[in-house]
């Protein structure tokens, strides 16, 4: 199996929207390689008999609730939690997305 390069760490950080310091890039390149090598231990297991992975460990019956209107959180309270919001129009505010 392959291992991670510094460029791949930068690509992952970009995909995951994480701004890293130079120190973190060095540290994580080494540590993520170690963790991946560890994770690759699973390759020692013969899983040919497992046709389809079943990721759901729950054996309790899943149920659907009635599609009824229930009270939800108060909009003004929710907007008050936001770092930036326009309460009158009921919108969250974020920095500019497009150049004018």
């Amino acid at each position, binding site marked *: 199996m392959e291992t991670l390069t510094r460029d791949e760490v930068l690509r992952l950080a970009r995909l995951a929207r994480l701004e890293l310091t130079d120190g973190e890039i060095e540290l994580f390149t080494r540590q993520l390689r170690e963790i991946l090598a560890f994770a690759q231990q699973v390759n020692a297991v013969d899983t040919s008999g497992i046709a389809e992975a079943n990721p759901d460990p729950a054996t309790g019956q899943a149920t659907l609730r009635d599609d009824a209107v229930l009270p939800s959180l*108060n909009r003004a309270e929710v907007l008050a939690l936001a770092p930036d919001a326009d309460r009158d129009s009921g919108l969250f505010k974020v*920095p500019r997305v497009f150049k004018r």
Partner: protein
Amino acid sequence: MKARRALDIGRAVANAETTASAVCEATLERLEHETGRFNHFITVAHERARARASAIDSAADRPRPLAGVPIAVKDNICTRGVRTTAASRVLSDHVPLYDATVIERLEAAGAVIVGKTNCDEFAMGSSSEHSAFAAVRNPWDLSRIAGGSSGGSAVAVATRQVPLALGSETGGSVRQPAALCGVVGFKPTYGRISRYGLIAFVSSMDQIGVFGANVRDVAACVGIIAGHDPRDATSALRPVDDYAAATGDDSRGLRIGVPRALLAEGLENGVRDAFDESLNVLRRDGAEIVDVALPHSRYATSTYAIVVMAEASSNLSRFDGVRYGTRATGAMNLEQMYSRTRALFGHEVKRRIMLGTYVLSAGYYDAYYLKAQKVRALIRQDFDRAFERVDVVATPTSPTTAFKLGERLENPVQMYLADAFTASANLAGIPAISVPCGFSSGLPVGLQLTGRAWEEATLFRAAAAYERLTPWTGQMPAA
């Protein structure tokens, strides 16, 4: 204050022999004095605790069975009006608008939430050092870790500041700190306890768990918070047994499986001795000790790492600085705002998000995530086979006692190995409990019992029987 059982406090308050306010004030005073020593609380909820205690005292009919019982809550469980940080800078000032279902149920039974406990950031860790606030210290030796990720809750109970505390479990985050701090720690079957209001980390494994100073208190507490909740689609429509009643039986006739091959390596000598002695105690009490094979559990930590990273990266994408939590300032555009806000995550969180992004990306998905899910199915099959022959599986909870603060902090793989005996129960979705079973060089050791799905009552029965036969749950660290 003398150490008292949760159920005794609840009875005394319900019968008006004492007041919830008196219990509350004594607890808050201790928290004020001792939090600096252990770093185990992030927020002490003075106002909410006092209001709740006084409401109980003035109620015509005092609630049961936890009237006035002070309870500490891990800081990744939402509490209305009380800051809930998940030990992260991203949520350092976050005050939720609602209570988790477990909080509602505990309060309805009379409990008083006294504070929010420190933990690894977003529950990612096995030492409670990955906190944006401070590293939690072990009350048996302040130079050592308390275990994690729910380390603060374990310490709050170990010091008997509270008789009960809530934690959360993804790979051992209640059982391991319970073992390392010398208290009882319980993880339910996946779906047994509502997760509404628990900050999501690994949705296919996360469960809320309970710490207590004795098995009966834990069983009673689980009985209160367990059961279906329409607000959590993964919570099961299964009847909840009378767990507290199950603690009255002995272990006669109980078949206990021991996976000897799994325990052959990596086990500290003192832990092995305490574990072997605990099996002797149970055998003398009438339990039958049987060898079982869990051949795939040796891959539990590597399987677990992959599943965890994948689900964590996707769950934590919600922390974007838009709707709640902290937003980094000075960003020129939206993209930069996201990246700088998420730069506030600690190192362990960043590592898991990046590796999760990697194992889920095109070209790697089959090799890592799909492969891990298949190994996960095999781990579960091993347990299914074992449970055809035995009622519970016994192992030490942790391969070692509490290690030194800082010892594994820069070595993530070593940290992950702390979950070697606990993660398989989460991967399989089955319940497990850790009970104190002695000491190794003055540090607590835990006995782990793992059971069939939905058969929590059997675990409480076995753990309580063991507890009665040994002096360990009464042990407390020197003040």
